[in-house]
């Protein structure tokens, strides 16, 4: 059996390859038979086929084999891309996803025979060439697909004996390809064992993984005495010896041939080991009848491959669409938890830095500017600089490109559009924009909801568009970009847009407003009603939307991660949603205030301004206190009331004006301390959500300060605002 870790590696790769197939089939549908795209899909299918076979997932292996066959024929130009083909491919892709679920969860038995049948029929009918079903062997390019899977290098001593025992999965995966490669090798004389190996993708991946774990890959060229009587035994012995210090992941010719003595004067292996080249050399050379040993480290250079010795394997051109600017970056896989821990430690540093700053201030005021003090100021400044840099770097390490979310969307839009009978051109920009992984996890759902809305309600059916004088095909643009210290994701459609008057009508129907209120309210206010729970602009609840998830949930989800969502719309011209998200969630700037004996923090994103008031400036509307700031009436909340604290307020009042969405509210506190960078700490699972609070932070003096849930306060105060409106009207 395979360990959990190995299965996880497999699943991760599977996920990645499925995405590749998905993306490329979409391109295929749009652009037809682009050779590069076909090649990409072929390769991905091939990889899945290989690894799923090794893992023993037969259905998956059979299905991908069939896909691979199909693409092989496409590649040879024996077939053409058609609509049926794309549909069948999507079906196959869905089946693969089901098969994946079968592995991960208690999903029901997935039947692959139907889709396999369709793929075969497709091969027969869509083809322009010869009989379908068995393209393997008939092609002119000896692609890895045709390599025999029957022989496994892994048959040699079990990896558990080697130091690289945890490499079991990839080794097996490699075995098939390694065996095939031998077919291209020709061994005619002395010199030929100095082969330059072409490393298959799979082998490269193994090598990369191994490097991460501290293994080095060597190409070992071994020459055997010409007079050697039992070459097979010798080779076996060499293998055995090498297994003691590492893992042989590949050999030319393959292990079986070697053991039966089917080689000339030498052979080549790729060895993964923690030993150095010299030791490997000495070890092999110590074996009798070994005439020469050459050990060379295997260098991996993505994109630039060591050319294959045989022209027939001219697959050396490797097209790996690397993200721009990433080039050949060496990477290490790090446990997410480790990153979180690092982030926490940096948080501690930030706190200590704040403490030191305070200390420096005291020092300066007490001792003036003597040398010692200046030294400390310098150290403090430097520490501050280093801490911010560290913080930034770790933050970057936690970042993932939004592609992780975006890549799932085109297929969804395609399917939706098909279902709704709409024609949509879905454009994605800024996939490479990076976001904190916690943020990435959250934005998926809101985005899907907005897209559904756009496809369902926004973009008109083609006929209607034509009638309106718009292009037949609707346009949907999803774009991510950095704006200052935020990420802004915009989703624009060129559809119907929203009509404030229709919403007015709806609001009255739903009893959210009286007809008079609705008539008096401004367009903006009316439009924002879409964020009210239970409000839907759809005339009919379709299969697509109206699943009980409304725009209110979208806004909530986004605000939960300190983001905001706004939109502009023009009837007949479309709607644009703008989602603004913070780069990270862990550290924020906050306004610190005191109330009673305690310190509270207001996230600066919600603080609009601060002011001091005389008690006489507070007015009353019914039972609610309000203040007038530059002509605008704002509800006033006393934090002391909210938190049932004893206030020390006297004389002048300190007020923090908070804003969220379009609402504003004034909050009375005892004293303003100032701005500070704080590390957000959760109150923990035991306490869960505490009303009015969004977390805690640790202050310079080691005490805990609570972070005020500014959005919550603004939201709750809104009720009073409405009551004010009502009182004004009545």
């Amino acid at each position, binding site marked *: 059996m395979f360990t959990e870790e190995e299965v996880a590696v497999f699943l991760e790769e599977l996920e990645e390859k499925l995405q590749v197939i998905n993306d490329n089939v979409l391109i295929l549908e749009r652009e037809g038979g682009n050779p590069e795209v076909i090649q990409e899909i072929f390769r991905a299918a091939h990889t899945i086929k290989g690894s799923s076979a090794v893992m023993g997932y037969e259905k998956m292996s059979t299905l991908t084999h069939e896909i691979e066959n199909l693409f092989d024929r496409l590649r040879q130009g024996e077939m053409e891309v058609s609509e049926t083909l794309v549909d069948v491919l999507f079906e196959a892709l869905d089946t693969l996803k089901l098969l994946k679920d079968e592995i991960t969860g208690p999903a029901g038995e997935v039947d692959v025979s139907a889709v396999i049948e369709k793929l075969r029929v497709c091969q027969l009918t869509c083809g322009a060439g010869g009989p379908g079903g068995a393209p393997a062997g008939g092609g002119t390019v000896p692609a890895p697909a045709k390599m025999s899977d029957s022989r496994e290098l892994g048959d040699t001593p079990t990896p558990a004996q080697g130091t690289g025992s945890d490499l079991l999965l990839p080794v097996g995966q490699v075995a098939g390809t390694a065996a095939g490669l031998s077919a291209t090798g020709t061994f005619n004389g002395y010199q030929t064992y100095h082969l330059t190996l072409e490393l298959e993708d799979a082998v490269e991946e193994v090598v990369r993984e191994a490097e991460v774990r501290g293994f080095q890959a060597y190409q070992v060229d071994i020459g055997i005495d010409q007079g050697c009587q039992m070459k097979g035994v010798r080779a076996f012995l060499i293998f055995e010896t090498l297994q003691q210090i590492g893992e042989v992941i590949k050999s030319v010719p393959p292990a079986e041939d070697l053991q039966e003595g089917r080689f000339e004067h030498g052979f080549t292996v790729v060895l993964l080991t923690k030993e150095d080249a010299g030791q490997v050399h000495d070890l092999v050379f110590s074996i009798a009848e070994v005439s020469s040993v050459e050990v060379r480290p295997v260098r991996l250079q993505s994109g630039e491959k060591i050319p294959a010795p045989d022209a027939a394997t001219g697959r050396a051109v490797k097209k790996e669409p690397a993200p721009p600017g990433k080039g050949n970056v060496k990477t290490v896989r790090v446990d997410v938890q480790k990153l979180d821990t690092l982030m926490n430690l940096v948080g501690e540093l930030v706190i200590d830095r704040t403490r030191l700053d305070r200390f420096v201030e005291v020092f300066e005021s007490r001792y003036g500017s003597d040398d010692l003090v200046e030294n400390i100021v310098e150290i403090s400044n430097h520490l501050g600089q280093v801490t911010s840099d560290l913080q930034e770097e770790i933050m970057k390490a936690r970042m993932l490109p939004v592609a992780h979310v975006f890549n799932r969307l085109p297929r969804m839009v395609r399917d939706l559009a098909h279902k709704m009978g709409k024609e949509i051109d879905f454009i994605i920009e800024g996939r490479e924009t990076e976001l904190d992984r916690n943020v990435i996890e959250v934005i998926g759902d809101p985005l899907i909801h907005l897209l559904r809305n756009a496809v369902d309600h926004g973009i008109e059916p083609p006929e209607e568009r034509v009638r309106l004088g718009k292009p037949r095909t609707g346009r949907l643009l999803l774009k991510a970009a950095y704006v200052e210290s935020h990420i802004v994701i915009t989703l624009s459609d060129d559809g119907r847009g929203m009509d404030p008057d229709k919403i007015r009508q709806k609001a009255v129907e739903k009893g959210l407003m009286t007809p008079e209120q609705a008539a008096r309210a401004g367009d903006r206010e009316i439009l924002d009603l879409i964020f009210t729970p239970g409000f839907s602009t759809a005339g009919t609840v379709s299969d697509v939307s109206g699943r009980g998830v409304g725009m209110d949930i979208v806004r909530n989800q986004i605000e939960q991660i300190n983001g905001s969502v706004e939109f502009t719309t023009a009837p007949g011209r479309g709607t644009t949603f703008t989602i603004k998200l913070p780069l990270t969630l862990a550290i924020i700037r906050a306004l610190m205030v005191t109330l009673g004996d*305690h310190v509270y923090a207001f996230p600066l994103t919600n603080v609009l301004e601060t002011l001091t008031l005389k008690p006489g400036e507070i007015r009353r509307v019914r039972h609610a206190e309000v203040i007038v700031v530059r002509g605008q009436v704002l509800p006033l909340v006393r934090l002391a009331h909210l938190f049932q604290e004893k206030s020390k307020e006297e004389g002048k009042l300190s007020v923090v004006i908070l804003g969220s969405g379009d609402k504003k509210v004034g909050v009375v506190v005892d004293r303003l301390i100032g701005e500070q960078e704080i590390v957000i*700490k959760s*109150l*923990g699972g035991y306490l*869960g959500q505490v009303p009015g609070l969004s977390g*805690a932070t640790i202050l310079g003096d*080691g*005490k805990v300060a609570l972070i005020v849930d500014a959005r919550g306060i603004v939201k709750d105060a809104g009720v009073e605002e409405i009551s004010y409106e009502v009182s004004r009207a009545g």
Partner: protein
Amino acid sequence: MAGEQQGELQLVVFRLKEQTYGVDIGHVLEIIRASDITAIPGAPDFVEGVINLRGRVIPVIDLARRLGLAPINVTGNTRIVIVEVGGTTAGMMVDGVSEVLRLSQESVQPPPPMVAGVAATYLQGIAMVDDRLIILLDTTRIFRREEKEALQELAEQAEERAAS
């Protein structure tokens, strides 16, 4: 857990309202003095607040209140026993920690339905040591999330009703 196999228990023993209680030492991370607790407005009344435990924000409960007794009077002897239960770290404030005790599994008796006002749900058993009674508390139950507990109680009540 090895101790349990040998039929031996190690307890952290503390005082609370003139009574002696014990919790399995396996759940106890450390014991600290009670100071600088930040009150949390709006939290249940047995929640004393949160403390900074070397950079972590940890909730602290008043164990006496949690067990339905009168609140603890904070004195110089008051301690916070930091425990880790089910992935959550939390502190419980007690009147004073007296000792760490080893005792045999046999000396523990199953809990009677009610002890000094403490609901049986929080009890693991009663230990008799040299004529002393030590009430063994089940920390996992004490630090169960409130809502879960409420749901559980509802379910239990429903079951009782169905059974009767």
